[in-house]
């Protein structure tokens, strides 16, 4: 079975190359931040993990009536009621609805806690802060407002602190 052997050889070689890769944290430790990368409407975003409590699969979403359209609803997370915000409303992204594979990224601060809707959570990784660049001029105002920076791989890193502190997310409406 020479083809099978070739395949095995190729896989083994790829794994060897991955193990042989030099870790990137060789730079200064103070300059690194950990981000959690996620995808939303075919675009990839990331948030600094310091503002993230946890990530969870989106289950049993209960829509809330009489709320703004960016509030998708609430979920029960281990006995705690958590509101879910859809950032696509702000970023003018095309809506794809909510699937069973959707995830919730729980943003947490001392004064605020809510969940962000994500299509998929890709990974948590460390990046040097120096690789972050200022926002691109093509970005709209809102994203620019929440933007922390853009990595070399054009990954948009959002600023969790600003999102959490944005009073626009506080819903105080009466019907």
């Amino acid at each position, binding site marked *: 079975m020479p083809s099978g052997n070739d395949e095995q050889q190729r896989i083994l070689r790829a794994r060897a190359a991955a193990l042989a890769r030099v870790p990137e944290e060789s730079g200064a430790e103070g300059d690194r931040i950990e981000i*959690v990368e996620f995808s939303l409407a075919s675009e990839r975003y990331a948030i600094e*993990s310091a503002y*993230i409590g946890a*990530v*969870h*699969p989106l289950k049993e979403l209960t829509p809330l009536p009489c709320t703004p359209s960016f509030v998708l609803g609430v979920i029960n997370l281990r006995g705690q009621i958590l509101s879910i915000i859809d950032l696509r409303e702000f970023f003018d992204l095309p809506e794809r609805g909510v699937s069973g*594979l959707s995830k919730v990224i729980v943003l947490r601060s001392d004064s605020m806690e809510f969940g962000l809707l994500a299509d998929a959570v890709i*990974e948590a990784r460390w990046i040097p802060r120096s690789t972050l660049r200022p926002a691109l001029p093509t970005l709209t105002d809102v994203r620019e407002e929440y933007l922390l920076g853009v990595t070399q791989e054009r990954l948009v890193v959002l600023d969790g602190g600003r999102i959490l502190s944005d009073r626009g997310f506080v819903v105080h409406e009466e019907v």
Partner: protein
Amino acid sequence: MLSNMKIGSRLLLGFGMVALLLVCVGALAIQKIVAVQERQQTFYEHPFTVSRTIEVVHTCISEINRNTKDALLAENARDREIALAQAEENNRKAHENLVLVRERFLGDKQIIDEIAKDLDTWEKRRERTGKLLRDNEKVKAVVWHREQSKGIIAKIENEINDISQFAMKKAAALNQESFEIKDQTVRFTYALLTVAVLLAIVIALYITRSITKPLATAVEVANKLAVGDISSEISETSQDETGQLLRSMERMLQQFRNMSELARQIAVGNLSVAIVPQSEKDVMGNALSAMANNLREMTREIIEGINVLTSSSSEIMASTNQVATGASETAAAVSETSSTMTEVRQTAQVSSQKARNVSDAAQNTVQVAQAGRRAVDESIAGMGRIQGQVAAIADSIVRLSEQSQTIGEIIATVNDLAEQSNLLAVNAAIEAARAGEQGKGFAVVAQEVKSLAEQSKEATSQVRTILNDIQKATNAAVLATEQGNRAVEEGVRQSQEAGEAIRQMGESIDESAQSALMISASSQQQLVGIDQVSLAMENIRQASEQNVTGMRQVELTVQGLHDLGQKLKGLVERYKI
């Protein structure tokens, strides 16, 4: 004169004469019998009565005498008176009878008056006797009686006797007279009867003769006529019925002679005679007339027929010549046909051989067709098995597809697990970062978990790819099996059609084989038939030769027929129509 009378009149005359004579005899006999009866009447009325009555008178006188004597001898008055009364009574009776005697007596009646006077006298004397007796003078009375009575009694008896004798004589005379009358009558009757018998015989003979003689003549003529002799001549003719008969026979003979003459004329061929029937009922005349007419007509037709015959026989002769020529040509043609038939026979033999070969080949073909049929049947059975196996394959593929589906679900689960592992890794990394320096090792674990999750995801991705390939292949296999199934069904249908076609072909071949067999048999029969035809042609050839010979004879015969027609023409010309 007598011979001219009718037979009836003649018979009436003869019998009339005899009857007249018999009437005369009867009348005479009756007259004489009446005369005899008169004599007898006279005898009875006169002599017989007188004789009988005078005898009574005589008896009375005897009684008177006895009574008188009784009176004389009576002892008492009473007896005496009775006797006297009886005497008176007898006296009276004697007188009465005397009256009768006087009336009937044919002789001298004085004597009877004498007797009456004597009786009166005797009475007076008896009165005296009676007176004496009453006076009781009996003796005187007896004496008186004796003296006076005896004489007168004797006188009376004598007178009576005379009368009796006269009566007897008269009776004898009457008897004699009767006898004479009888004799006379008998004689006359005998004579007249004899005359009548003789006359009857004579008349009978004469009448018989007058009838039988002409009848004999008629019988003789009729007998001759019965044997066809019509030469008889009848000359004697009387005016009576026999004469009429003979005259009729003469007319009949004349008629026969006329008819015979006519028939003789017809016999010698003179058909132009005119035959006039005597009457409507003249059967023979009518028949002769019809016969002559028919003969005329027939002879005319015969003449026409003979004319036709002679002309026809001429034409027949000409035709016969042509026919004879034709028969010769026919004979030649038949000879050619015979030789042609021989060639045809050879051809038919070859054809029969070929037909037999074809028949054998057809039998082989039948066997081959049967083998083909069996092969097709087996092919159909094989197709059926293939169909079953294809169905089994389809089932297996469907199961495979279902199992692929299950695998897909399992992969989804695994993928889900990988996703959750990834989330766990992210959470772990977050927790590790939050733990700071203590969480560094945990961060490595989280990194490993993430790596595993990625590998799992990659593996599931590969499995999903493979599974997709499998599902595609499975779908393709399902489609292929479907198509295979349809192809097999088509194959089965086509095999069945092929089988049907081969079966029909086998039947056709069977029929062909049978036809070939029949053709073989037919060509065999044809061969035999052609042999027979050849034989028949030979016979025809001989027959046509005989035909030619026969036609020669027919020519001769027709010549004879022609001659016969000429002869008949000569014969018929003798008849005058």
